[in-house]
């Protein structure tokens, strides 16, 4: 499975990844934009105690994505080789994916009559042709690497081990919400990069899955209980009617 490793310490904020992304996806290049339906990745600058830090945001491509699990018709799918892809032609626009994403990544074309979702596709087609993602190819400093997830985890661990004073001892995305295909290592806390902290380590679809799994037994037992109650109360009404008739029988 493919993954991206983003090394925040190496990002110089040149924006080559953003330009390459726009070119590969036929999107307009805009300075200083937020993630949006036409901006699949953005580079941002943040002032910290360790100076100015550049970082970039994009879809995290969760291993068990909330967006794909909530989509009622499967317009969003996790491919076995890594990408979470979106099929606009079948989407009905319920926006449950926008609501469910813990990273607030999917963005919606709010001003369209046939709105689509916009988010990074992990260059799914390029991967199929044996290429790396456009952003990784364009990155001049190796701040974004594209490769096998296990390999990249190894690289990340090696970098952290080599310079323990520099890196925080954590690979963001290794275990968050069950793991993601985009991994971050950094010298500044991940929350300053706008990445949510304290995410559950369990994949989010498990939360709704537990409720959904109660349905079959619930339907079965409700059916049995209703049938039982109907039979009981019907019998009771019948007995009451019969009693009334025998009591008034003499008079009739």
């Amino acid at each position: 499975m493919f993954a991206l490793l983003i090394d925040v310490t190496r990002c110089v904020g040149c924006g080559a990844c953003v330009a390459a992304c726009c070119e590969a996806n036929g999107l307009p290049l805009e300075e200083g934009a937020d993630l949006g339906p036409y901006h699949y990745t953005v580079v941002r600058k943040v002032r910290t105690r360790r100076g100015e830090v550049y970082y970039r945001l994009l879809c995290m491509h969760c291993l068990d994505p909330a967006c794909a699990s909530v989509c009622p018709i499967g317009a969003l799918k996790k491919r076995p080789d890594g990408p979470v892809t979106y099929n606009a032609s079948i989407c009905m626009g319920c926006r449950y994916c926008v609501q469910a994403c813990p990273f607030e990544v999917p963005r919606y074309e709010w001003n369209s009559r046939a709105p689509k979702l916009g988010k990074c596709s992990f260059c799914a087609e390029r991967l199929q042709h044996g290429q790396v993602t456009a952003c990784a190819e364009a990155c001049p400093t190796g701040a974004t690497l594209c490769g096998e997830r296990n390999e990249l985890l190894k690289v990340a661990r090696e970098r952290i081990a080599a310079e323990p004073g520099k890196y925080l001892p954590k690979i963001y995305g290794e275990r968050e919400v069950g793991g993601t295909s985009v991994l971050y290592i950094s010298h500044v806390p991940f929350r300053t990069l706008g990445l949510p902290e304290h995410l559950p380590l369990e994949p989010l679809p498990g939360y709704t899955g537990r409720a959904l799994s109660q349905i079959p037994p619930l339907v079965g037992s409700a059916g049995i209980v209703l049938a039982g109650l109907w039979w009981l109360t019907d019998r009771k009404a019948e007995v009451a009617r019969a009693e009334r008739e025998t009591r008034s029988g003499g008079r009739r």
Partner: protein
Amino acid sequence: MMIRRLFWRWLALAILAAGVYATIVRFTQGLGAATNLSDQMPWGLWVGFDVLCGVGLAAGGFTITTAVYILHLEKLRPIVRPAVLTAFLGYLLVIVALLYDLGRPWNIWRATVMWNPRSVMFEVAWCVMLYTTVLAVEFSPLLFDRLGWRRASRAARSAIVPLTAAGFILSTLHQSSLGSLYLILPTKLHPLWYSPLLPWLFWFSAVAGGLAMVIFESGMSARAFGRALELDVLEKLARAMTVFVGLFLFLRWWDLGRRGHAATALHVWGADSLPARMFWLEMALFVIPAALALSSRWRRSPQRLFGLGCTMVGAFLLHRLNVSTTALAAGQSYFPSWMEIAVTLMLVTLGVAAFRFAVRHLAVFEGPRRMKEERPTQVVYA
């Protein structure tokens, strides 16, 4: 009287005009032009009120039919038809609201072919479709009788017990699944509302809210159609409502305590105190009518009973709106656009108009239709 009627008529017309304008904007320029929705707040009034509340307030349909046809509570029979009508119209309006809210409504049929059983929305879609069908069949004898189609009417009536059971199961799934929708947001939903028990909380509050809606709707009908209020029946509903609210509140507090968030509710002053305040407002709206409904003096007075029903409907609405809006960080700065409000008001107005139309032309209320004219001394709500 004349002036009052004119006022309502003009108000309805104004609402319809605003709603039609909003409809045109929505479908020609997209959701962004008509609503205050955003990527941070993708579900607004149309989901929070029209869908979540609409479905919940239609719960009177399945509770009353279950009470009458499964539990043989014959005393409730006079209110079965208006309850089914309310539920049926409620579901139709929910479907219309969904068509407004979906970005690509022409793809809605795909939910029937492209299955993703892991999605709560998929369950919701199927429950809406199937239960609307059940409600249509439950409602159909009224139409068949009017048309004189006796065999069709008899056929529909003969299926009422299995239909009611199916309606109970589908409604239970649907009401609870609206709560389950929010289970995927453990980090986004405020802890005062996020709970693994959301499906159950939604079910209990829907039953209470649905019964309150029947009381409300009976009061309004009594007023509008000059009918006597079925006080002895509604008094029983108020009692049942109290039981379900009690269970809901017990579950709510037990859950808050279990998750260690009972103290979160005390955060009523200072920064970020809006959720706690809304929580207590919601609590008060649930507890006060439920407590008053314990007294038979309150239950047996038509005006007071009507007031209890209204307050409980309000409590229910606030709970749903809190879950869908207040509990989200982005929701606290969201307020619907006037066009979102206009469409919602238009749908409610159309629902009321359809109800009136049905009452005029179909035997919705059993027995003599215009009691006021025949027996002016009856207890009439006014």
